[in-house]
Structures are given as C-alpha cells and as structure tokens.
C-alpha cells in the first residue's frame, strides 16, 4: 500500500494508535523540559513554549486514547485484558489524565494572570514523565519493536 493512499489509513486498524502515540509523548516530554528550563532560567519565552507544547500534547491524547480503545474493541473484541495489555491500558489512561492535569495547572495560572506557576507542578510533571515513558515502553514491547522484521 502507498503511504498516502486513503486505504492505508482506513485499513491500518490499530496501527494508527502506534503512529499517533508518538505525538503526545514527544510534545509532553519537551513541554516539561521547557517548563523546568523556564523555572531555572526564569524566562517567559521558555514558559510560553512549555505551555503550548503541553496544550498540543493534551489535545493529542484524545485520538490516541480513542484509537487505543477502538483497537481493543475491534481487534480483540473488547475481551477482558490481563498482563501487559491491561497494564498498558491502565497506565495509558493515567498518563493521559496526568498530561491534562499538568496543562490545566498551567492554564489556571494563565487565566488568573498570576506571575508564578505553583511549585507543586514540578513533581507532578516529573512523575507524569516517568509514567508516560513506562507506558510507551510497554507499548513498544507489545507492538513488537524488538521482534524480527
């Protein structure tokens, strides 16, 4: 199939989840990195870059969660999950919620026009990065990146 052929997109099934997942992971990790740098260097520009990266990361979780759940319902007919698949599902949902929580903390500060972001966001962001990384690792393990071909 040609990569720009509409059939490739339609018939890719859960492969869409595997492709889309890279967007929130990359945007969130870079967003957190910018936020830590903004805190350290006290630069508004870095804080703004962090905010917009976190915003797009949060939006990108929506199609990712949807395609993941659809893959479970269509490919596995919604059967009761266990083991790595269950861990991946639970950690994926927790990751998405944490990404939204982090963005909402930033959003709240902006709406209130407060100068300083709350300090408690930093440990939340650090924990979120760890959980996102672990979820991605499990997903990579499941998708067979270590397998032949």
């Amino acid at each position, binding site marked *: 199939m040609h990569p720009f052929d509409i059939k490739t997109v339609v018939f890719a099934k859960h492969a869409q989840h595997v492709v889309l997942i890279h967007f929130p992971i990359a945007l969130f990790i870079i967003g957190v990195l910018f936020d830590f740098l903004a805190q350290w260097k006290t630069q508004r520009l870095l804080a703004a870059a962090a905010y917009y990266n976190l915003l797009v990361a949060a939006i990108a979780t929506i199609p990712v969660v949807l395609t993941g759940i659809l893959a479970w319902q269509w490919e596995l007919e919604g059967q009761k999950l266990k083991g790595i698949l269950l861990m991946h599902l639970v950690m994926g949902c927790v990751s998405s919620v944490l990404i939204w929580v982090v963005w909402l903390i930033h959003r709240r500060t902006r709406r209130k026009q407060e100068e300083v972001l709350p300090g408690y966001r930093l440990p939340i962001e650090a924990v979120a990065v760890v959980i996102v990384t672990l979820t991605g690792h499990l997903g990579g393990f499941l998708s*067979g990146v270590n397998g032949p071909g």
Partner: protein
Amino acid sequence: MRRSVSIAGLAAALVLGTLGFGTGQKSYVASAQEKTSTMEVKIDNFSFGPVELTVPVGTTVTWTNRDDIPHTVVSTDKVFKSKVLDTDEKFSYTFSKAGTYPYFCSIHPKMTGKVIVQ
C-alpha cells in the same frame, strides 16, 4: 583411506541433517502415523513455527504461546479466532474440512501462518 571416507560420510550426514532441520522450521507435512493426532504450532519471537503446516482432515492443531508477549491466532477467513494468549497459554482448533487456512496475530498483523488441510 578408510578414515577419510568415514569423515566425509560424517560431514555429509551433518550437512544433510542441518538442511533438513532448517527447512522443517518453515513448513511441515504431517506423516501418515500422525494422522488424526494433535499437531502443534509454536508461537515464539513474533513468529509462528512452522509457518506452514500441512495436516489431514480431522487434525486438531494447537497453538502454544512461548513468547513473552501476548498473541492471538485469528483466521483470515474468520473460521477460528483465539482469545489473547499469554505466555504458555494454548488455543486449539479441529480442521474438519479440506482447504487452506491462512491466519495471523491480530495484535501483530505482520505475524502470519497457514494450515493446509488435505
């Protein structure tokens, strides 16, 4: 002279044995003695082994997941479909009609195999 002949014979046997072993991994034809018995397909390292299995009508094929990753066994023509198989879990299906049954893993669609029922 006799010694060199026996070494050559041993080498030939080794080469033939290795070749036979190698081809046996890709496809397998059940012998007459194995008729109506259970044949096994091993799932390991993201592949089905043997990839192609030829069996007589009435044979029960059992897939065993020897991989660390969950897999499924799904017939392309929707003839059979397993649940998610974790490590060491099995799925069996008895082939009562002759034909070719291609199948794949729905979690890893690149993993494919085929059962030929004669």
